[in-house]
């Protein structure tokens, strides 16, 4: 009805290859941005921003990172948590060494460290693929977890072994530490995610992204057509780890405030992988949808399930059991989506849009 592209003619090549060719899509994007930047911080309370929106944005960024590697390049990775850790520890060490520099610069710079580590552990991907790569990325995960415990220089020789985020300012506003307000932290996270999503979408539709997808679809054919696997794979590992590193730095500096090794353990790698599978392999929109489902669903179940069970059944369950229930639901959703719709929520969204376009006709 209102979602029609009739009458929208494309007169130039630029208009034809635009990211959002339909006028309504452009309108929606601006509306989403307005809601995200203005309405959410204006109406959201401390809990909503700090416990739901900020983690959602952090995990979205990590999911974009993993999706670049798994969804666009076809290299599966279980080391996401560790790469996030590299970013967090790098950011911590840099801001301790140079306290006066704008923290946002360090958040982006920490991604570079993560990218270097990621490229190193991505080297085996030049000889192997598939399941074997799972082993090498798990090697990264366990080795880096060990390093975060055993190298005291990384956490500045603290007795607790944890990293505590110091108070830092950017543009004269306190953005990290205990006294930073949730609104400021949320706006920064959102800005970083929006910028990096825009960047990712441009990389993906450019030459580099196309070479990644060629490697994913058929590596031998890609090589014959002049794609160098060395550059394509290592650049995918680098960009992916860069995103994970920035996500890790945001996670510690904007969300948790303090972190130990447990914040980067392999459960997080799984969580991010699930977001990518559920949201849709090879889709940026899917990263947002997957992160929303996997982060917000457990929060909702934890709050709502115990009272419902109390009310309608003779049993009672506590919140940790509710967490287990949400884990089971997520596991079942993974299996069901792999069977029914391997391309995830993003694909469902595309189907809905297609239906809207041709409504009321079936096709």
């Amino acid at each position, binding site marked *: 009805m209102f979602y029609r592209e009739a009458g929208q003619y494309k007169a130039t090549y630029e208009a034809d290859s635009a990211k959002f060719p339909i006028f309504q899509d452009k309108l929606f994007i601006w509306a989403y941005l307005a809601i995200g930047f203005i309405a959410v911080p204006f109406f959201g309370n401390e809990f909503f921003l700090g416990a739901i929106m900020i983690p959602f944005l952090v995990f979205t960024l990590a999911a974009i990172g993993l999706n670049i590697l798994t969804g666009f390049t076809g290299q*599966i990775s279980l080391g996401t948590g560790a790469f996030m850790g590299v970013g967090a520890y790098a950011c911590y060490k840099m801001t301790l060494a140079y306290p006066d520099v704008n923290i946002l610069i360090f958040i982006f710079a920490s991604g570079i460290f993560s990218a270097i580590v990621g490229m190193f552990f991505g080297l085996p991907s030049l000889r192997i693929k598939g399941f074997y790569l799972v*082993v090498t990325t798990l090697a990264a995960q366990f080795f880096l977890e060990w390093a975060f415990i055993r190298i005291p220089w990384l956490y500045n020789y603290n007795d607790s072994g944890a990293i505590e985020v110091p108070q830092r300012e950017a543009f004269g506003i306190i953005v990290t530490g205990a006294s930073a307000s949730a609104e400021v932290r949320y706006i920064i996270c959102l800005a970083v995610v929006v910028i990096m999503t825009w960047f990712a979408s441009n990389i993906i539709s450019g030459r580099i992204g196309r070479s990644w997808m060629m490697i994913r679809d058929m590596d031998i054919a890609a090589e014959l057509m002049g794609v160098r696997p060395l550059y394509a794979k290592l650049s995918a590992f680098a960009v992916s780890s860069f995103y994970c590193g920035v996500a890790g730095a945001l996670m510690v500096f904007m969300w948790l405030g303090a972190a130990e090794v447990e914040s980067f353990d392999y459960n997080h790698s799984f969580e991010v992988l699930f977001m990518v599978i559920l949201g849709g392999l090879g889709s940026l929109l899917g990263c947002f949808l997957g992160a929303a489902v996997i982060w917000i669903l457990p929060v909702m179940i934890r709050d709502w399930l115990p009272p419902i069970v109390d009310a309608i059944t003779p049993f009672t369950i506590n919140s940790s059991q509710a967490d287990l229930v949400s884990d089971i639901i997520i*596991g*079942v959703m993974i299996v069901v989506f*792999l069977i029914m719709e391997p391309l995830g929520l993003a694909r469902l969204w595309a189907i809905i849009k297609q239906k809207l376009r041709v409504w009321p006709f079936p096709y």
Partner: protein
Amino acid sequence: MELLRQIFIEPFETMIALPDLLLQTLWEGFVSGTLYSLIALGFVLIFKASGVFNFAQGIMVVFAALALVGIHALGVPAYIAVLLTLGVMALLAFTIVRVVLKPLVNQPEIILFMSTIGITFILIAGGQLIFGGEPKAMITTELGLPTGSSDWEVGGGIVIFQHIDIAAALIAALLIAGLALFFNKTKTGRALRAVADDHQAALSVGISLEYIWVVVWFAAGVVALTAGILWAAKSDVSFALQVVALKALPVLVLGGFTSIPGAIVGGLIIGFGEKLFDLYWGSPILGGGTESWFAFIIALIFLLYRPEGLFGEKLIERI
């Protein structure tokens, strides 16, 4: 210079000076190696027969042990509890094959792999929901497994052999021998090998793939139960075992994904290697705790030089 000395000379000096310590470490390495082999064996069985890389094998070990302890806690005698647990594993095998794998036939391997990660998640949360998350003691004495230890004096010191470790090695050897017999002498076993060789040829001579898959997942369940009992008898039944079980992955890389002897040899190499490395190199130079990653780093290095593993089928595929 000091570092070189620490790497190349001191460990060997310690080995010669304290032979009992060396023997003790080797024995411990052997014992944990057998258990890695058992877990890896479960992976290989399923991978050979259905081409599924079963990430859930580690949690199946925990789940089997938990089910056994849980059923025993209901007041069922130990041996009947083992039988009932086998029933649970058979049911699990049937459900996984029917509900998950059958609809995913002909999908890319990576999709099947991810579905087993989903299964892992369901089993972890389901196991905690049913049996509780806290560590439990394994019913070692009720099952008739020996406890206690013997000492052996050597080179001025003593080496301690826990009886449960000796029993574990024997049981593992028996299980492997039993599986070998099953594969070579029974009709189902031959059908399994046929499926492992060529799915389509096996189908064309009338072997039911679904039946074979259920059998092979059940066999992996039996292996998982054995590994779970033996491992938990040494420590406790807890979900921490699942992280240990991930070490079966480097074992597979070393041994090759499709080779049963490879799984055994690879498990032993990893078992010996990580204990020796941690004692003689890891603790003095790197500050200890290297067992968590040693196996994976070895696998990573191995993959760069011999991706097909020690005994695996050579894949003629350039990347």
